């Protein structure tokens, strides 16, 4: 599981090296986007979170984020950190962007390169499987559903083959 998480927020070459964001900060950004959406009138978190930006986050929102992100906001400390992160991101609102189209990609003036439909890669199963923590024959092994390895290892399965 941890390998999947790091893949999703992995650093790519070409990006300035940032410190690895804390998990709660990563989802603060997402929650902030949700608040902005609400401000634009779409159905969202207006009723769920304080629209004035005092950063108070409801229990319902926490549950939802936990389910989506698999991050355990177990402690009050984690929730407090999340609220601080939202407040930090909120400072973006200080900039007046009326009438300005959001930039979606720094590549917006570039041409999208079209590749010909030829097979040029693949056939490297062995190499790829070496990256995996666990492997069965030629399959990657992941825990069932969305439970992290650490939680699973705690429970001892009662039968082993």
């Amino acid at each position, binding site marked *: 599981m941890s390998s999947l998480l790091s893949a999703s927020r992995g650093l790519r070459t070409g990006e300035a090296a940032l410190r690895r964001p804390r998990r709660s900060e990563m989802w603060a950004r997402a929650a902030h986007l949700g608040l902005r959406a609400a401000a634009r009138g779409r159905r969202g978190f207006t009723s769920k979170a304080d629209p004035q930006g005092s950063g108070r986050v409801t229990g319902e929102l926490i549950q939802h984020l936990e389910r989506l992100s698999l991050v355990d906001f177990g402690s009050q400390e984690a929730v407090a950190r999340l609220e601080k992160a939202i407040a930090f991101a909120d400072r973006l609102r200080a900039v007046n962007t009326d009438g300005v189209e959001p930039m979606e990609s720094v590549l917006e003036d570039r041409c999208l390169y079209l*590749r010909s439909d030829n097979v040029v890669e693949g056939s490297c199963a062995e190499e790829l499987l070496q*990256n995996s923590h666990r492997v069965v024959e030629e399959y990657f092994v992941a825990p069932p559903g969305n439970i992290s390895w650490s939680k*699973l290892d705690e429970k001892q399965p009662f039968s082993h083959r």
Partner: protein
Amino acid sequence: MAAPMLRWCCPGRRFAFAWVGCGSCHRRGPPTGSTSNGKRGQSSVAQQPHFTAQKPREGEHEWAAVVGLEIHAQIASNSKLFSGSQVHFAAPPNSLVSFFDASLPGTLPVLNRRCVEAAVMTGLALDCHINRKSLFDRKHYFYADLPAGYQITQQRLPIAVNGSLAYSVCVGRKPSRMVTRTVRVKQIQLEQDSGKSLHDDLRSQTLIDLNRAGIGLLELVLEPDMSCGEEAATAVRELQLILQALGTSQANMAEGQLRVDANISVHRPGEPLGVRTEVKNLNSARFLAKAIDYEIQRQINELENGGEILNETRSFDNRLGFMPEPNLPPLLLYDSGSLPSGADPQQVINVDQLRERLPELPRVTRERLVRQYGMLPEHSCALLNEVGLLEFFQNVIKETRAEPKKVTSWVLNTFLGFLKQRNLAVSESPVTPSALAELLDLLDRKAISSSAAKQVFEELWRNDGKTPAQIVAEKKLELLQDPEALEQLCRSTLEAHPHVVMDLKRGNARAINKLIGLVRKATLGRADPTAIKEVLERQLSS
């Protein structure tokens, strides 16, 4: 052939042409025969419930169901949407996976031109507006078969929008008429497929194969313009035929190349729409109709018993988790008027050029067959419904002098019947179009009777390498050509069976059949029953 042609449009096969017989098939909008409040009026729709378990309830005819579909079609291409690894159905696990597909850091998506063309062609075939500029997004969610943690898709600004899909349903019985229904296509977008998970519950683990991860998909969103399982299944079937005709997808549901999710709700006519539930991952056309109708019935029962419908899929607006794909600039498409001069043709896509290259669509083919050969619409439907059958039919037509109606009847009844009985595809048929053409010529020349022709056909199926003419000669199946001989045989039969003649003269009309049978035996089956009857009747009346 006395047997009705319609037999081959039976349930069990989904045609882009269906009998609408579902009990819950109520239409919103102008009545096309469906009714409410039990007033049947001049309704020509025979409402027969799909579910035998339900006895008619008081309020049942007052419900209207609404069905929308999300369809994912795997694009038929050599390589994947954003990488150069191969697209193939069966291969050793993780052997068709590139570094990008495995989401290793440092890899970037590179768009496959063929997938874009496939999307544009499909959009054009469905009368969509093609967006000259479309964008790619990331949709984030965690699942083990999605190594990147997000799927690249086109939620915000897809490649094609606002089209329509037309399909035919047959309403009423005796007389039945064909009605064209349309369902609006909300949008078509390009997106990545995910890998495959195999769940091993015994060891509490999931095995992941990424061969499928990254294959290009067309997601087609159909608006909730359908009102029952049958309509939805028919629409899907027509879409399958279109995709196959275009070559953009093989759309084989059994192989997972076409996956359908249905959104279903019920409401009382005149009132706002009810809560939607989703039925996901329907993998066969037959199951699709049943599952949708089952869900409609379940919702009706729930609401009639005072319950409410719960939408379990999402409790929040699911826009959380979308962001623009920063590694891909906007996708720009051109037409002949806007093509940048001096551009590398490999790097630009011309929508007008693709429009010109569109092949004939199934709807047009069916209309052409009806016009050209005078066949019934359900026949043209049946011809298109079986892979290779249309080509077979056209090859027979080319080589035979027999009437198209005869050819149609033989191909759809006899030939297709033999195939189905032995569970064979057209490509596996031991009878070639030329052989059938020759047989039909013999029949047309009245060299053999139709029952003899059936015998010859059976022989041909055994594939001993003999031509129809050879088989006819060997088995002495030629029709009696000498009229005198026939007259003789008839006369002698009449003389030999006076009691049957008496019976006939006393008024038992069916006695003639016995006489015909006797003459046929005497001719060793080489006389046409109609000819025999004619001679006998003439002789009897003189």
